[in-house]
């Protein structure tokens, strides 16, 4: 039998046997079996609030903003750029290293 004829015959055969399976509650069953992830976003808010409290303490008692402003005023501009650039670079590297190992902080 020619290849084209075989192809036609097989296409017709599989088309004839192609069924659409009704859902019949399958999707609901899948959704009900999806594991519930524990919400740990409170950790972010908790440590964020502690950080804010400490910062406010230093702002109110030690004049933190003034000190930081004076520090930036004296610091060479390229030092500031380098300091700012370090975080995204390290952050990105860390993300790829940990992401591949399926590691997550939260």
């Amino acid at each position: 039998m020619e290849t084209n004829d075989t192809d036609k015959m097989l296409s017709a055969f599989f088309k004839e046997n192609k069924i659409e399976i009704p859902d019949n509650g399958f999707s609901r069953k899948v959704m009900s079996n999806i594991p519930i992830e524990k919400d740990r976003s409170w950790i972010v808010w908790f440590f964020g609030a502690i950080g804010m409290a400490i910062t406010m303490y230093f702002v109110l008692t030690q004049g933190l903003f003034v000190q930081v402003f004076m520090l930036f005023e004296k610091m060479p501009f390229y030092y500031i750029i380098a300091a700012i650039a370090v975080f995204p670079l390290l952050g990105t590297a860390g993300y790829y290293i940990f992401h591949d190992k399926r590691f997550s902080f939260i």
Partner: protein
Amino acid sequence: MSNTDDIRWITQLTLLGDKSAFDKLTCKYQSPIRRFFLNLTVGDSQLSDDLAQETFIKAYLNISSFKGISGFSTWLYRIAYNVYYDSVRARKYYADIDEQVIDSQYQTQNEFSAEKMDIYKALNLLRKEEQTAVLLFYMEDKTHKEIAKIMNCPLGTVKTYILKGKERLSVYLTKQGYGNK
């Protein structure tokens, strides 16, 4: 419903954690995935539903690893293929049990069996890899490239599987009188 819908639903799920978006994906793909398993398991509807469910749960848990390079459908079939072969490996322990007897029992139990005996008999003539490649090509309308991605093997190997499967099926179907229809 197009691939754009898939991307939209995946974005809703990954960025907003919207589970209803995954429900829509499940509704859209449940029929082809269950049909794929039903044919691979030669009509075992209970097993195919269990495997399909495992596939969707794995897809949900690993949705963040979907890069969008291939379509969502191809990615989902890749998971389904892995789930199926994991199950085949796990069941090799029971290889001594006569599979034909079990298959015939299941075929009498499932609702699609009566008129589907021919396709199951035909698929039983093929090796597992040939079954998968032939089903994806003729039944699920996947291209050779997509099948290579799903089965994680070279394009040439996929073509060989399909060619060999085609040869065996054509001999069987011609004997059954399909060529004369």
